[in-house]
């Protein structure tokens, strides 16, 4: 089964097409890097895949189901621009809430384990308000991973992360791919993304300009893709 199946997907803001005729199929167990400039439609596409928005036209299947299907959403992990943490709750309470929402059998246990796993055990019951930026980022990563999702949707995950959080995230992503889970990430940081990616999609003004497996020349010269398929810079 394919992790993602998009058929002729359009998204309009008024009459302005933010996504035009996007069609592709992503097999399970691969890592897709979603590339493109600001305003090319990366965030819009990820929001549709995570069920935050409905496409204007076309059909989207995520893990074989509609993105708004609750059972499908239970198998997806989402990490957006914001960190989605409640400042007035403790680290443990934040994770327990989401563990509960994701229907885990032992929400508290899972939360405790993940707090430890991202190295926040010492401040598990302090309020997130008192956390440093790096600590928040690690907690947010834990929130996205705690239900062991089969599909991970990450919007610009490496921007503004501190070194330790980047390492945590990269390790988790590598593990995830090794375990046969699917990862989709949008990014500006070409080099970090291309190292992880097995597949690459390039969006130019809402259109899918390139879609295919990542080749070695992309790794050697990350800007090649933009020169070849994108607009003149």
């Amino acid at each position, binding site marked *: 089964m394919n992790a993602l199946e998009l058929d002729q997907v359009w998204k309009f803001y*008024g009459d302005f097409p933010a996504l035009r005729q996007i069609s592709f199929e992503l097999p399970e167990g691969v890592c897709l890097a979603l590339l493109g400039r600001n*305003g090319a439609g990366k965030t819009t596409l990820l929001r549709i895949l995570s069920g935050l928005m409905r496409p*204007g036209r076309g059909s989207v299947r995520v893990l074989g189901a509609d993105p708004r299907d609750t059972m499908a959403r239970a198998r997806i992990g989402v990490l957006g621009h914001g960190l989605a943490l409640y400042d007035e709750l403790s680290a443990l309470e934040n994770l327990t809430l989401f563990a509960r929402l994701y229907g885990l059998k032992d929400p508290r246990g899972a939360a405790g384990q993940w707090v430890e796993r991202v190295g926040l055990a010492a401040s598990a019951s302090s309020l997130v308000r008192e956390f440093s930026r790096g600590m928040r980022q690690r907690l947010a990563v834990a929130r996205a991973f705690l239900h062991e999702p089969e599909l991970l949707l990450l919007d610009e995950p490496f921007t503004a992360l501190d070194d330790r959080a980047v390492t945590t995230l990269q390790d988790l992503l590598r593990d995830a791919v090794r375990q046969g889970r699917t990862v989709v990430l949008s990014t500006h940081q070409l080099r970090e993304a291309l190292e992880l990616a097995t597949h690459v999609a390039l969006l130019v003004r809402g259109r899918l300009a390139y879609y295919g497996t990542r080749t070695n020349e992309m790794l050697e010269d990350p800007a090649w893709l933009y020169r070849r398929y994108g607009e003149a810079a």
Partner: protein
Amino acid sequence: MREKMLIAFCIVAAILLAYNLYVMLLVLPDEVSQGPIFRIIFFHVPSAWTAFLGFLAAAVASVLYLVRKDLRYDAFAVAVTEVGLAFAAVTLVTGMIWARIIWGIWWTWDPRLTSMLVCWLLYAGYLMLRHAVEEPTQRARIAAVFSIFASVDVPIVFFSIRWWRTQHPQPVVWGGSMDPAYWNTLFLNWIPLLLLGAAMAGIRLRQERRQRELEALRRMAHAL
């Protein structure tokens, strides 16, 4: 084509209105107890009907928008809501002028007037809400949800205000049945008002389409 239809609507409306005015002012006699002021009803009541027809159409268009996600339904909903509000304003103001003569006061919490005022507030809220949202697709969705709430609320408002007022002494409106000649003129005057409303809604609809084109162009210009 559409342009010509709008113009035709306006011309037919103008002819009918001129004829109706002639009948109202020169043919029909004054009503016995109220005098000439009674003639306000020929505008007051058909305006109210036109307004409610507009609000009803807006409710249907809002549901259709949420089902089909086609912005043309949204444009239709705004157009008829705005025209409905204009006619509701006519109803309110003519009602107040009539009340000034018959009851000696500008405003009274008469159930019909009060309900109309609440409707006006509801749909004025709809327009304000639209004003506050930038992105057209989001605006359409939010406005449609609100419009459905408003349309479900309207009948409840009418019943509740009727019950409320009947517990208090109620000013006598007009006694008994109207002469069929009056009824005829009332309906005859509704036709031009409806035509006029349709023409105005048609113009507003076209503007909404242009507005969408404009917003799309603006986004394109930013993307360049």
